[in-house]
């Protein structure tokens, strides 16, 4: 006679130390196996797209900072590049280089946050502090450059707002070998750790077909072997001048995503090196009218943010504020794979899989 069992409905979040923000997932578990998982989002919905219809383009840029607040520079970029494309503005070279440098630094900072918090979720406390310490250096660089530590409001349509102060480029240059050293230390500490490997190898596996169908981008897609990166496939800014690789793995599990992101940091350092070498002089802002009125039309611009493909669909009717501004947020789309891969998984792996997806709730909810 079988024992009568019942399914337990467990609510993870919205207040939970490991859901990376206000995110709730309702899981039905039978013992420790998840039978069904339903994410519930919208706790951080602030109506950015609706607000944007009343603001002019420069005023929307601070709102973009707050979408994916861990990686604000790429958000800035996607909006200004959409407007620039519509208005056919040519951005001065120095501005483009500054943009690339800050975007790559931002990518490293964002991956460090991800790494630290992911390991904290898994249970190791120390890498969190090491990662944040290194991120402090990057944040200090940003602070010097544009006065803010997290939400920068740095880029403008046509260029960037602040020029690199004296010595700033040298500091970026010095940061590169320092970070390479630190990555070696982190590798020693974590990548070979048996417990860590046992926790994340083979967990949360999916294949390339599912990934593409679900619209995954970023490391979530590259871990299955699909070599897609907006910087290479549809190059924007001055990325076509740099040499860098797109790391991919084929296993499709959490460990693959982990390795892909670590490798991405290394590639970002490579880009930074080249950018700092080639850094030109010149103006940092194109000559533009004070009130920006893009011509009527629509445009979809995309950017490779640390989380995936960030897109901005802009419909303009010729006014100084957009008619419709829609952000294609990578975390929002990436989160859709969660219900699929959680079914049949043990609940102990819930947090591990969620962490490897690398979501930021500001972006999920917009």
């Amino acid at each position, binding site marked *: 006679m079988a024992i009568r069992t019942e399914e337990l409905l467990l609510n993870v979040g919205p207040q939970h130390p490991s859901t990376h923000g206000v995110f709730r997932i309702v899981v039905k578990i039978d013992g420790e196996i998840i039978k069904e998982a339903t994410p519930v989002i919208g706790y951080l919905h602030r109506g950015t797209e609706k607000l944007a219809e009343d603001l002019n383009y420069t005023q929307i840029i601070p709102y973009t900072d707050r979408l994916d607040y861990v990686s604000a520079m790429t958000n800035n970029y996607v909006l200004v590049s959409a407007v620039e494309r519509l208005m056919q503005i040519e951005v001065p070279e120095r501005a483009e280089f500054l943009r690339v440098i800050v975007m790559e630094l931002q990518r490293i900072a964002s991956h460090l946050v991800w790494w630290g918090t992911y390991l904290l979720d898994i249970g*190791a406390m120390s890498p969190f*502090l090491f990662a944040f310490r290194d991120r402090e250096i990057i944040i200090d660089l940003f602070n010097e450059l544009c006065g803010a530590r997290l939400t920068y409001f740095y880029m403008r349509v046509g260029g960037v707002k602040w020029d690199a102060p004296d010595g700033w480029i040298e500091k970026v240059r010095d940061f590169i070998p320092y970070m390479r050293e630190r990555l070696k230390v982190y590798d020693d500490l974590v990548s070979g*750790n048996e417990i860590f490997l046992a926790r994340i190898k083979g967990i949360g596996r999916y294949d390339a077909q599912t990934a593409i169908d679900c619209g995954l981008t970023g490391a979530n897609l590259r871990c299955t072997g699909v070599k897609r990166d907006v910087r290479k496939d549809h190059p924007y800014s001055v990325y076509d001048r740099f040499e860098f690789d797109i790391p991919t793995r084929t296993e499709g599990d959490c460990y693959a995503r982990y390795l892909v992101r670590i490798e991405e940091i290394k590639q970002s350092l490579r880009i930074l090196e080249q950018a700092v070498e080639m850094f030109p002089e010149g103006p940092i802002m194109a000559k533009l009218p004070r009130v920006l009125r893009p011509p009527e039309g629509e445009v979809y611009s995309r950017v490779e943010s640390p989380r995936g493909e960030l897109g901005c669909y802009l419909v303009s009717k010729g006014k100084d504020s957009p008619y419709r501004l829609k952000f294609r947020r990578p975390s929002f789309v990436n989160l859709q794979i969660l219900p699929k891969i959680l079914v049949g998984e043990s609940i102990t792996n819930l947090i591990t899989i969620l962490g490897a997806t690398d979501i930021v709730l500001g972006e999920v909810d917009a």
Partner: protein
Amino acid sequence: MGDLLVQPLTWGSFLTFTVMAVLFLLLILGMVTYGIYFERKILGWMQLRPGPNRTGKLGLLQTVADVLKLLIKEDTIPSKADRPLFKIAPAISFVPSFVVLATIPYTDKLYFANLDIGVLYYVALSALSTIGIVLGGWASNNKYALLGGMRSAAQLISYAVPLVISAVGVVLISGTMNMIGIVERQEGWFWNWNFLPQILGFGVFVIAAIAELNRSPFDLPEAESELVAGYHVEYSGFRFAFYMLAEYVYMIAMSALITVLFLGGWHAPAPFLDFIPGIIWFILKFCFMFFFIIWLRGTMPRIRIDQLMSLGWRVLLPLSLANIFITAIVVEIIKAING
């Protein structure tokens, strides 16, 4: 102290016992306070940060402040919780950890009980604290707490087995379960200490001990980031302080036990260092074990529950059994050789 124990009980000796027990209790509380302080400091240094350094000089009064805070907090009990069980659970968890301290000999003169079955008694008592954890998880009327309590029960029971079995190896080569006897057999140079002859047993014992203590990397029952603190999630204030106290006292007890069983108790590493009192050696070795446990916490990620269970049953248990067999065989061979 020893002689007092074997004499008939008089009011005078009873008073002496009570006073010594109370003093010891206070001493242990002091050690817990500074144990917590050192844990935070050491973890901080490992993580490139200073640790507490504001309250009192060098942050020395940090734990005092924390304990005071816990004591003056509101005593909240969830409305649907099982009140009697909720209140008793921390106490059940805490009492055994204190009681076992009585069985450990600190020097050849300083001990509270001279039990001939010391090791067995210790292990039996420490298993009692499992009940406190399970009760805490159940009585909280909270799914997370329940999950944490169940996991913890599974973990503690599974690791109690390799713990005991690896200690049996020590008993075999010492020929007695009496802790004083075990230490006496380890005198001489440091290679006489049991950790070398019983290297396998030592490894298994340390791992099982850390699992018994619910410490990282085995702290899934209180996984802060996954189950939001597991079985003690609904506890706050003084009751929570009890659980924490139980954990730290138990840590002290375990470190002391390892010192006695495997690291030679109060003996110096070399005979010529005998002039340094035994208690100092005991304290040094004990501090080293305590530090080792903290060190592991700062370095390792957490093991998942199913991996933890398979580690306990499929790795540690066979190893400890193998240890017994090898030890038994070697002991017999040596006995045969020595005639």
